[in-house]
């Protein structure tokens, strides 16, 4: 991480200011040293790739700037003052201010964005295969399903998927779960204010409430896919084919949603399980659904081909062992995954797995 110059007015090259310059140079040097050490200490295997770092940063910037713009619009309406923007921190300095204050490393926010980016990259990298012959692909077929609920839900997934891609267009925001969205909007509002101004603060607080109220819960990531999976309500005999075809059609979101619906495991956790390169938890989840060898092999092969961190030879070696696990055993082994989120988090904290 580069150390940015101090955003505030730098001291002059005179008198007492010189010692201030020396002091801040020392602080920067120390920061640079510790960042270098921290960077080199990172485990190569778990380190984010440049692409993920870049995409996460871009999403974060987009989120902050969209939120700030929404807030400003509301503040202008509330104060009936077009000039109010001048008294707030300019948008281009907002991200930097939040970053320096450590507000952009909210672990839950980073987890969410990294997972979103990894899922997008997975979708791009999955090997495509047209299993339907001359028929349209899975989602398109579903939009034409006789069941109108399924058809509408499938169309919503196609639409949401298009919106989910980062477009760089200012009117396209990144979807976040409600609780993260709420934290982010408040912190952006706090970063916007530059000095005490009771009237402005009141307006900002009201603007936050309005922005949050306008949030549509259905906009959260994977929501459309989850609704589709619920509408399909796949029978055990239909599930294997749907799972395999969703991956072959580059729809990992639908793949996750189908598993969520079938297992009752929380969507965020299921996404983490599907994205982790070792795959151990996923193989057990698949066995808990009693999926056969060929289905597990197809799913494993697709994911291995899409993610360079995965080891396809290791998976092939392990496959017999995985399939030998009975569905009952697998269900027992994965039972904790179905526990409430807070309970799981508490257990992880006790095991010392939780962050810091």
């Amino acid at each position, binding site marked *: 991480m580069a150390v940015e110059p101090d955003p505030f007015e730098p001291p002059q090259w005179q008198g007492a200011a010189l010692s201030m310059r020396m002091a801040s140079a020392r602080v920067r040097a120390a920061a640079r040293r510790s960042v270098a050490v921290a960077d080199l200490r990172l485990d190569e295997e778990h380190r984010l790739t440049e692409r993920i770092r870049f995409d996460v940063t871009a999403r974060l910037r987009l989120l902050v700037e969209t939120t700030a713009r929404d807030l400003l619009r509301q503040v202008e309406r509330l104060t009936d003052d077009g000039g109010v923007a001048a008294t707030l921190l300019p948008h281009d300095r907002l991200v930097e201010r939040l970053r320096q204050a450590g507000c952009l490393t909210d672990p839950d926010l980073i987890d969410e964005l990294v997972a979103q980016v990894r899922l997008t990259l997975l979708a791009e990298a999955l090997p495509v295969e047209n299993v339907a012959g001359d028929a349209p692909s899975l989602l398109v077929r579903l939009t034409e399903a006789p069941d109108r609920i399924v058809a509408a839900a499938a169309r919503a997934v196609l639409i949401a998927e298009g*919106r989910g891609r980062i477009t760089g267009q200012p009117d396209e925001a990144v979807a976040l779960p409600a609780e993260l969205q709420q934290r982010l909007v408040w912190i952006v509002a706090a970063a916007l204010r530059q000095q005490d101004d009771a009237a402005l603060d009141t307006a900002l607080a009201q603007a936050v409430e309005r922005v949050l109220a306008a949030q549509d819960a259905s906009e959260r990531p994977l929501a459309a896919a989850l609704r589709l999976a619920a509408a399909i309500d796949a029978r055990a005999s239909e599930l294997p084919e749907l799972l395999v075809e969703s991956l072959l059609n580059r729809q990992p979101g639908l793949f996750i949603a189908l598993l969520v619906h079938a297992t009752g495991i929380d969507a965020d956790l299921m996404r983490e399980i599907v994205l982790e390169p070792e795959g151990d938890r996923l193989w057990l989840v698949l066995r808990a659904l009693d999926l056969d060898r060929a289905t597990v092999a197809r799913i494993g092969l697709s994911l291995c081909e899409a993610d360079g961190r995965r080891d396809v030879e290791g998976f092939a070696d392990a*496959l017999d062992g995985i399939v030998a696990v009975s569905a009952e055993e697998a269900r027992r082994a994965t039972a904790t995954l179905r526990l409430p989120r807070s309970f799981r988090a508490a257990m992880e904290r006790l095991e010392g797995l939780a962050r810091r």
Partner: protein
Amino acid sequence: MTSMDSPGESMVARAILDAGDHILSADPPIELLHMRAGGGATDRLAVAPIARIARLARRLGIAVSRKVVVADEEGDLDLWVQARPETGQIRLSVSGWRDRAAWRPIATPADHAAMGADFRWETDAALRLTFLSPGAGQRHGFDADAMLGRPLHALFAFETPTGSTSRFLADTTTLDGRAARLRPTDVPVRLSAAIRHDGMGGIAGLFGATFLIDEPGEADDEFALAPGGPPLTEAFTAGLDKALRTPLARIVANADSIAARADGPIAADYAEYAQDIAHAGRHLIGLVDNLVELQAIEQPDFRLAATPIDLADVARRAAGLLGVRADTAGVTIRRPAADEGLPAIGDFGRSLQILINLIGNAVRYSPRGGEVVIAVERDGPWALVSVADHGKGIADEDQARIFEKFERVDPSEAGGNGLGLYIARRLARAMGGELSVDSVPGEGATFTFRLRAQ
């Protein structure tokens, strides 16, 4: 030179392996690869990347399809390999059989939005729309959400009927820059698209870009510089030369040194990107060279030196210069015998340039194992050099077109910028000669360059 019999891109070669990866039966191309890789008749399949896929398919118990690069004597081959386990055996089908794709200018970059496109779209293999750029509907007056899942032709009306899906897809090369109308608003657009391949090299869908056409009539002009456009002025090309050549040379030099890892180790991916950048840069430098030349030869008073030259000697030299490229492409060049001579009147350097262009084209369009024949002949007052290949030939209606600016013998082919033949003909005429083509589609083409004999 022994050169592998090239089965062509569409051919699928098959083989069957036993439980120990030994070849039970194999079509000649696979057998040849196996032998080239050092394998004997009773050995395990010696082509490592293919053997790896076969083993993986056996262990997983499912079909595995992958694209692999296999080193062949003349270079690398891109192959689509599918291994299917069946009762203890592995059935292999291998398609592709083409040299690694050379860098080519494409209208649709792989990702991150076609530059400058008004909106992007994607379809599945059945040409149903699966993606439209967010906001495209609002900006261009159609209901994008309702359009998803509908056939491509529900959104675009093509000037010529698209017919069946397969015919349309087989013809996607011509979709580049293809004119169409946005059906809901009847606005003219230009489309460009690329095919997304599945693991067996089959078609899994299209991803494309839409460019709105502002000027009426632009639909007919691929490029602003196409015939009928304003002539290039000297100031323009001089400016182009100055503005582009230096930065391009720097880009190429830097990209080459990144690709060569001159400044230290980098990930293989990045080295490959750098190589792509260098290739693209060289292509652009070539284009600048040609545009500068174009400006000179398009002057009405452009004339060339008329000195006595030996056209047979010029042809032999041109063939010699292209020897390495021909070897790489597995093509044999038959040049005029060393004792043959053909006196003519013209400019030595320019004649050499024309013949390099003709022979280079012939090599490019020849199939692997093919032959390019260069013959010299005196015909009354004319001295003739002909360059014949056995490529796919040029349709009658295209024979005039290829001598025009920015036209290509085969627009889908890599390399070249569509200026070579135009310049060659202008040069031939400036020497009082002529450049013509004779071709039977499917059998090859013969280009004849004539100059006045002494």
